[in-house]
């Protein structure tokens, strides 16, 4: 596919997209930690996570990931149906 970019421009573009992806992932990760910490950790009388708290965090992460995946699927479906609607007109 001829995108009109030179080899080195192409490489530069890929590099930048990758960096942005990493940044985005890190911010998603950060907010996940924040959310699960808020929901699960309320006892600051000790330094270590209790068994209950780490179990809660595990479940919180798993639920978040499942939710994100499912929302992604629904969004893609909605997008596809809206596109189809617009093409009909």
């Amino acid at each position, binding site marked *: 596919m001829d995108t009109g970019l030179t080899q080195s421009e192409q490489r530069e573009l890929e590099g930048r997209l990758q960096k942005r992806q990493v940044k985005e992932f890190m911010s998603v*990760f950060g907010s996940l930690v924040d959310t699960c910490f808020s929901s699960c950790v309320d006892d600051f009388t000790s330094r270590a996570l209790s068994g209950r708290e780490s179990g809660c965090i595990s479940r919180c992460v798993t639920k978040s990931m499942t939710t994100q995946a499912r929302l992604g699927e629904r969004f893609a479906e909605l997008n596809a149906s809206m596109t189809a609607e617009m093409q009909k007109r």
Partner: protein
Amino acid sequence: MDSDAVKKAIIRQALQTTNSVNARTLMENINRKCFERCVPKPGSSLSSSEETCLTQCMEKYMAAWNQVNLTYIRRIQQEVGNQAI
């Protein structure tokens, strides 16, 4: 330096930068969250119980970070395993 060594040096540099940005963001989050939880009514100085709470909050936050990391990786590995079947 040959090109391979240059590449490695650049990767190392990039990782360092990313790590320091991550560390800074992490610190900001810890600051915000732990101040919220441990110092509900700010006085003119930190009491010793507030200080203790802040220390333990920070330790717990980092432990939580590790726990999230672990769970996340485990889950990804599971999904990759499922797809491979």
